[in-house]
Every structure is written in structure tokens, then in C-alpha cells.
């Protein structure tokens, strides 16, 4: 709250009598909007804060109704998640998720960048139709493809294999990535590319030295979104993996039980599993905001 109130505070006593009523009204409206923004922000963060708090409670405290804020804190939930007492080992599923997300994101970038180039800078004929085709591949509900994919995986021996998920996540995220990158690459001034070519730069050089630096925030935003989508994917992971290729979200569901209490454990597990994505998001925050707003105003 401090950052919101401080700029207004020093000016207020001096200018009260001097400000015209219109400006005062505008400032009041600004403060009201700021307050609203804070309220909405808190509303959105509250569940996560609640989850974090619950993850440090004991199971019995986590289940009380009405919930208690002042219950003693404990690391039991985290101990249980990391299998300190001899439970399941969380590292294989976490590594599986990391692998599936990183590889699929890398593949998506390798494929989406040239595609986006051909749709924005060197436009192919009927490029809008191509864009629509990419979008149309997202129109089929994911669940409709589940059974064919399962049967395919079963018959080809790809069941419970992380590489199947890598391929699936790559293809699932590719259309989104192409759309995002297309709008980012459209921002690159054509004159700049022409100038580079005039100086004798070949396509790879143009891509690496001219296009990439300008589109870097966009590429960062795209890869983070792809990473998040693959990291959080549950439906395919739940059906197609089992013993060796289980990913973190599928592992997370295993903490839910219909007999006995599990809230604190699930919260602790959710915290650990959402941390990598949160960390990546914070690390790339500047680029991300730049990237996400890059194509916004056209």
C-alpha cells in the first residue's frame, strides 16, 4: 500500500486550497481506481497465500472449520511430500515434468520461429488462412483426442513414455506459439531487415542478429507460456503415464484421499510444484511484461 499513498501524501496539504475542483476529482478517481486495483489484486493472491499458510499447518489444523490463522506452523506437509518418512519419492515426477516442459518448449521454439517469420516478415501467400489453420487445430477439445492417442500409444508401446508427452506438448503448444510469435515478429521494422540484407547479411544472420534481439522479449514470453502449459498439463499426463513417466501434476493428485485428512499435504505439494514456474515467471518478469504488451497496441 505504501507505494500507492506516498506520492500523494506530500503534495496534499499544500495543494488542497490551490487545486481546481476538476483536478481534485481526477485525483480522487485515481485513488479510488488504485484502491480497486489493490482489492482485486489481493483477491487474486489470497488463495495462493492461503495455500502457502495451510501448507505449514498440521493436517488437523488445516481441516478445522472455521479455519484458524494462528495455528502453530509445522513442516510436516513438506516432509511428507519429500518422502522423509519413507513415502513416495517426488524427484522422478519433478524431473519428468522438467524434462517434458523444457524439451517441448525448445522444440516449439525451433519450429515456431521460422513459421512465424514466414507469416509476418516474409509473408507467404494466403498467410491469414495459414494462421486460421493453426488456430483451428486448437478447436478440437483435448479430451476428444484422448482415446485415439491412448490406443495409438498402447499399440506402439509408447505408453508411460515421457517422449510421447514431449511430442504431444510440442504439438499442443505450437499453434499458440506461432500466433504469439507472429504478432511479435510483425513489430520488427522491415526497413531494418532490408538494411541488413543490403549490407550482405544472409538469412541466418538476419534472424540471429536483427530479428532475435528485437523479438527477444516476445520469445521469452512465448517460451514461458509454453513451459507453464506443459508443466501444468494434467489430462494427458494422467492417462498416458504410469510408473516411470509420471509427471508432477499427476503425482500431485495422488495426495488426495477419500479417507482421512490431506489438505496440508496437498497444499505443501502444490507449493513445491508451482515454485519452479513462479521462479521462472519472476526471473523473466521484465521481459515478460515487455513481451506480452509488445503486440498489444497496434
Amino acid at each position, binding site marked *: 500500500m505504501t507505494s500507492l499513498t506516498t506520492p500523494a501524501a506530500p503534495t496534499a496539504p499544500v495543494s488542497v486550497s490551490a487545486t481546481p475542483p476538476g483536478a481534485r476529482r481526477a485525483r480522487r478517481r485515481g485513488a479510488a481506481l488504485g484502491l480497486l486495483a489493490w482489492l482485486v489484486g489481493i483477491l487474486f493472491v489470497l488463495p495462493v497465500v492461503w495455500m502457502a499458510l495451510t501448507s505449514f499447518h498440521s493436517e*488437523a489444523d488445516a*481441516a*478445522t*472449520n472455521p479455519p484458524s490463522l494462528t495455528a502453530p506452523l509445522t513442516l510436516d506437509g513438506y516432509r511428507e511430500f519429500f518422502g522423509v*518418512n*519413507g*513415502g*513416495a519419492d517426488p*524427484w*522422478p515426477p519433478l*524431473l*519428468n515434468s*522438467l*524434462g*517434458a516442459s*523444457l*524439451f517441448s518448449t*525448445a522444440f516449439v521454439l525451433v519450429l515456431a520461429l521460422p513459421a512465424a517469420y514466414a507469416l509476418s516478415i516474409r509473408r507467404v501467400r494466403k498467410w491469414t488462412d495459414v494462421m486460421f489453420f493453426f488456430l483451428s487445430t486448437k478447436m478440437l477439445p483435448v479430451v476428444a483426442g484422448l482415446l485415439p492417442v*491412448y*490406443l495409438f500409444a*498402447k499399440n506402439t*508401446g509408447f*505408453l*508411460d*513414455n*515421457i*517422449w510421447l508427452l514431449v511430442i504431444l506438448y510440442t504439438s499442443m503448444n505450437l499453434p499458440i506459439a506461432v500466433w504469439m510469435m507472429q504478432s511479435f515478429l510483425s513489430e520488427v521494422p522491415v526497413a531494418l531487415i532490408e538494411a541488413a540484407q543490403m549490407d550482405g547479411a544472409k538469412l541466418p544472420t538476419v534472424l540471429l542478429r536483427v530479428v532475435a534481439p528485437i523479438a527477444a522479449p516476445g520469445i521469452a514470453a512465448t517460451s514461458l507460456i509454453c513451459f507453464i502449459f506443459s508443466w501444468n498439463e494434467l489430462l494427458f499426463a*494422467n*492417462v498416458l*503415464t*504410469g*510408473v*516411470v*513417466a*509420471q509427471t508432477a501434476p499427476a503425482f500431485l*493428485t*495422488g*495426495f*488426495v*484421499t*477419500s*479417507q*482421512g485428512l*490431506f489438505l496440508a499435504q496437498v497444499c505443501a505439494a502444490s507449493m513445491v510444484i508451482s515454485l519452479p514456474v513462479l521462479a521462472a515467471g519472476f526471473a523473466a518478469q521484465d521481459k515478460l511484461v515487455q513481451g506480452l504488451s509488445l503486440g498489444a497496441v497496434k
Partner: protein
Amino acid sequence: MPTLTLRAARIPVVALAAGALLAGCAGMGGGGSGGKTINVLMVNNPQMMDLQKLTAKHFTKETGIRVNFTVLPENDVRDKISQDFSNQAGQYDVATISNFEVPFYAKNGWLLPLDDHVADDRAFDQKDILPSMRESLTADDGKLYAEPFYGESSFLMYRKDVFAEKHLTMPKRPTWRQVAELAAEVDGARKGMRGICLRGLPGWGELMAPLTTVVNTFGGTWFTKDWKARLTSPEFTEATNFYVDLVRKHGESGAAQSGFAECLNNLTQGKTAMWYDATSAAGSLESAKSPVRGKIGYVQAPVEKTKSSGWLYTWAWGVQKASRNTDNAWKFVSWASSKEYEELVGRTLGWSNVPAGKRASTYANPEYRKAAGTFSEVTRRSITSADPRDPGVQPRPTIGIQFVDIPEFSDLGTKVAQEISAAIAGKQSVDSALEKSQKLAEKVGEEYQDD
């Protein structure tokens, strides 16, 4: 030279990413695993979590067989098992299946018959398994298809201290009418305490389980011997009206959304004086951390026209027919369902955590009786007196007490439960709920009438 510093800063980032990739690659799961390894798929219940913790230190150490567990919540585990077993994909050698699935899984040829293994494994002592459990895991072809891990029936739990304050006594063999009168007496005995907790949450395994036992003992049935649906019969209607009235008048608040977990919470937190539910609840109620430990009395399931009325349920180990490790799979099943395993749990985790309800010897064990004294005898009697082939007053078309053992029942039971849950919520009358349900049941029954 701004570009240079930028590039220098990038190197560690790239190295980090590459390292992460390599690490991911090394740890990522690829194809299947060889050697002496079996894959087990099981439901996330406390007894299974204990098993997971004890397996490596004991089973693997003794036999050299590694066990990979996949643990999922109940609904997910059912989906995953039916997916893997119906395709005979063979990903899992062993899975937890209940006595609901065993008969038709066996009929579909998805399970390995265990008779030969049982005969060879003298130490397992199959005769020690309670007869009603054996019966419920034996298919129509007379072969045994699963071994119980733990079993349960249903009984009535009540607050002894509250009853004493009100000078009420709970009969040893209560009838439902007596329970309804008692519920009216103890309703509001303490602040925020209701008379009884009964499941109202839609689901064939939630509301439908206790309600079907009430229907059975009131003389009703889902289907006649020749698959005629009987949901609008006077007995079925009377039982449902009784159940809905009782829970609406003296039951928990938010009853239409309360299942096993909610009722367990209610009794633990003093929000209800009675609860009719699974015998396995007693373990949590009498655990060291429970605030109502020692305050709960247990009596057999209330009756009307039958002598007993408890249900029968067990989580059991089934071996997939497509498994390539059947011998090792049996070794695991034999260990997990053994007397020795029960002793191991008793010694290391406490006797109230023993996966009980399946072996006669458990109830002869003095240490178990000491820990589970208040409920062990009632539990044993409830399980042994449950008859899955003849749970009511009339012959049934198939096995099952709190369910009708056909694959369609999970869908039918859930839809009917939704109608009755709506009646509990006061959104429709019991008659209209049952009329709609009758139509659903008729459709399912017709499929079987031609057989």
C-alpha cells in the same frame, strides 16, 4: 562494449539451462523397467500409504523384488484400472480393486485366477480369510480372483457421553425406528450438535451405499431375481422416505453435500451425536490425535425386517491377466495380505492402524483386541454376518449388498443418488425422485432380462 557484457552474462544462464536439460534427460522416464520389479496401482487410503512406507524396508529387502507404486484418489484409480485392465495394457501387475469390480472384471477375463498360487502358498493360510470376504472376491465360475487387503462393514456409532447425559441407552441391536427416536432426543443435546449424520452426497459409493442397506432391511430391492426394477415399490419408497426424513429433520447441515469425509469430521468435531457408516471410520475416531477418542460407542447396523444389515466392502489385490510377472506379483499380494504384515504394522505403526477386517486371526490377536477393543468385536460380527448373495428378504439377480454388481451400476447408482440427494436438499419429493430413478433402472434391467 554493452554487447560483450550481455553475452558474458548469458553464458551461465545457457549453462544452467543445458544442465537442467541433461539432468531432466537422465532422470526422465523412458520405456519399461526390467529385472525383478513389479508395478502396483493403488488407491490413496491411509492403509495403502502405510504399506508404501514399509515395502522397501521389508518386502524388497527379503525378496529382492522392487515395487513401483502409483497412488491415485479413488475415482481416478478406478478410471485408470479399468483403462489399463480392459485394454490388458499390462502397465500394472497388481491393482487395488474392490469387491464391486471383481465379479465382472473376472467375467471379462481381465484378472488372473489366484487359486493355484493360494494352494502353493501354505503360509498365506487362505482359510484364515473371513468367509464373507472370500465369497465376495470369488466370481461366478467359482474361482478366486483377488485377496483382501482390508475389509469393512457398516455400523452405528454414537456418543456414549452425550447419551449418558440425556439418560438414553442405545440398544445392542437397534432398529431404524429406535434410531430415529434417539436422533430426535439427542438433536441439539450440545450447541451445534445434530442427532445423526447420514451421507447425502451423490455417488453410488457415497449416499447410495448406506441408503441401499436401509432399503434391504426395509424389505426393498433394486431388482427382482429376473431383473425387474423395483424402485417405486412400497418397501423401497418407505425406506427412502424414512432416510430422507431422518436426515432432513435431525441430520447434519448441508446434508446433500456430505459424504464419508464430512460425516467423519462432524463426529470428530462434536457436530453430531450418531453416525451410520463404514466400520473403518473407527480407526480414525480412536486414533491418538482424535478429540473423541474413547467417547464413541459402536453397535451393529440398525435393522427392520432382516437380522443384520451391514454392508460388505473390501479393497483387495487383483493381478492383471496380461502381467508378465505373475509369480512376483503373487509374492507381493501374499506379503501385503499376510498375518505377518498385520503384525509388522501393529509393531511399527500401532495396532489401530492394522489393515483389519479380513482375517479371523486378527480378531484373536490380544494386542489388536487391546487397541481396538471398543469396536473390534462389532466389526468382526458385522463383516461375518454380511451375506453378499442374500442381503435382503428376496432372491437377488447378482451378488452385492450396498450395490448391484453390474458395471452399469456405478452410473445408474450415481444418477439415482443425484435424484435422492436433490430430495434431501428439498428440491423435489421422494416420490418424484424415485419415479425418475425407476425409469433409469428399468432401462438397465432390460439389458439383462434377455440373458
